[in-house]
């Protein structure tokens, strides 16, 4: 549904995105994760047909975003980061205006449906200028959903919403993501974990990691790498621990503690604890080491971080 190859965009001398290649398939929610200025919005604008890339290609549902921009725009629902709305219009008139631009045959009905999806039916006749930020965000989302697009591109869809609205909007996105392709950007890691089938971490215009949230966490959080501290000689215990099925890459650290890794999905820690105690050693510490998801994110997006 979404396919980019070597997508690059320069703003003057500054390279905003650099050689991005990724795919998003039907029925998949893909999260775009990265710090501010990483290139998320630029990528989304290119995919929505707003601006052309400097280099590379992007296709939506098989249509090129530059050559067949109108076809792409027909198939994409786009929620920009700032949610631009016409504050002089009522919610209904605004959505009807957008429906007319999209030539929707039964515009009024489609507007009603979209309003229902974002639970804004009661405010249809209210002026946009009188809406709270959360409600404006929902109107923006209704605009993106209006024509039942095949691909939904949402730039920070939950920003500025109160916690209850965040839950609602995430529910809507999850529902839509079952059938259609959703690409959403966020800098909230837990949101990416909850909503996305796959996460792309982007920094300084480059993809630095790409995986399912679970694998990413497993790969990077460090839950599978543990530290073992005992009272006594670690060298003596090491052969016994290394025999345990699933324990890998065991080593003694300069401070005398033992560090080891175990294969994803196999938690060997109970067995390790048992072995320590049965061998007559005192167990002082057995804990996961490494990074929280936030730290991983910082690690991956810091200067000079390795690319994937």
């Amino acid at each position, binding site marked *: 549904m979404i396919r980019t190859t070597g997508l690059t965009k320069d*703003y003057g001398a500054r390279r905003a995105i650099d050689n991005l290649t990724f795919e998003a398939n039907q029925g998949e929610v893909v999260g775009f994760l990265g710090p501010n200025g990483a290139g998320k919005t630029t990528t989304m*604008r290119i995919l929505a047909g707003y*601006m052309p890339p400097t280099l590379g290609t992007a296709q939506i549902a098989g249509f090129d975003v530059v050559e067949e921009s*109108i076809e792409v725009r027909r198939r*994409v629902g786009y929620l*920009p980061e700032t949610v631009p*709305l016409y504050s002089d219009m009522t919610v209904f008139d605004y959505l009807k205006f*957008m429906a007319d631009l999209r030539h929707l045959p039964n515009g009024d009905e489609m507007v009603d449906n979209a309003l229902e999806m974002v639970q804004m039916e009661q405010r249809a006749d209210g002026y946009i200028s009188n809406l709270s930020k959360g409600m404006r965000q929902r109107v923006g989302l209704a*605009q993106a959903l209006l024509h039942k697009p095949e691909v939904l591109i949402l730039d920070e869809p939950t920003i500025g919403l109160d916690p209850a609205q965040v839950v609602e909007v995430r529910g809507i996105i999850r529902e839509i993501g079952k059938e259609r392709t959703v690409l959403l950007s966020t800098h909230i890691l837990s949101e990416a974990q909850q909503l996305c089938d796959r996460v792309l971490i982007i920094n300084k215009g480059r993809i630095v990691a790409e995986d399912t949230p679970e694998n990413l966490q497993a790969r990077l959080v460090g839950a599978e790498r543990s530290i073992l501290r005992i009272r006594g000689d670690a060298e003596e215990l090491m052969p016994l621990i290394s025999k345990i099925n699933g324990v890998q890459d065991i080593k003694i650290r300069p401070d005398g503690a033992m560090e080891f890794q175990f294969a994803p999905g196999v938690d060997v820690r109970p067995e390790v604890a048992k072995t320590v105690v049965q061998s007559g050693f005192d167990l002082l510490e057995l804990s996961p080491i490494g990074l929280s998801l936030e730290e991983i994110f910082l690690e991956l997006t810091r200067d000079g971080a390795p690319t994937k």
Partner: protein
Amino acid sequence: MRNIWTIARREIRLYFSSPIAYIVGLLIFLITGIYFVLTIYLSGQAAYTTGSATAPGPDLVIGLMVFLFLFAVPALSMRLMADEHRNGTLELLLTAPIREWELVIGKWLGSFLFVFIIIVITFIYPIVLNSLVTPGIDQGLMMANYLAITLVAAAFLAIGTAISSFFNNQFAAFFATLAVLFFLWVVIGWPAVVLQGSGGIFNYLSMSTHFSSMQTGTVALSDIVYYLSLTVLGLFLGTVAVEIRRWK
């Protein structure tokens, strides 16, 4: 065509809900109304004292109106595109399945229809005049005058739309439009005055030369082509400006 009309319809609605459009409309009617009544009154007085007087022609308020348009059009066109840039709504429009030229023409059409309504309302002056003078006004001259003011308004607004496309700030767009209109109306004709016979090209380029010619009742094809070309050029430049912004 449908997209153009969707955009134009929104613009007209916006004019009818914006104070600046009402202020501009009111000022035009007020100034032309006072001028009209005063001229009629003075020629009536002259007729009373001298026994006869030349009745004012159907071009009575048109000359004044075009002068007022030099200021009114920048005020009406300044926000057309600049506001869309500033509010970020251009992103919304350009990610909908609509082409840049449809957007620009739609914007221009909306403003043109609003100004056209103003022009149509001023039709009341020749109608009143027709009932006051004997044997009535010269209908052909009246039509030539109204055709001239309509063409000038179309060209002015296309220039205003184009300039608004280059700016984020509507006041910058206002002053730039005012300057360009003033240049095309007045300044560009100056070399023709200085150069006499060899300055024909400047005469042709001057908007006011074509207007004056039409105001006398001579509707030459070259005058119509001139104003239509200027309108098309304005709309073309507006489209280019929007495209440049996308590529930047």
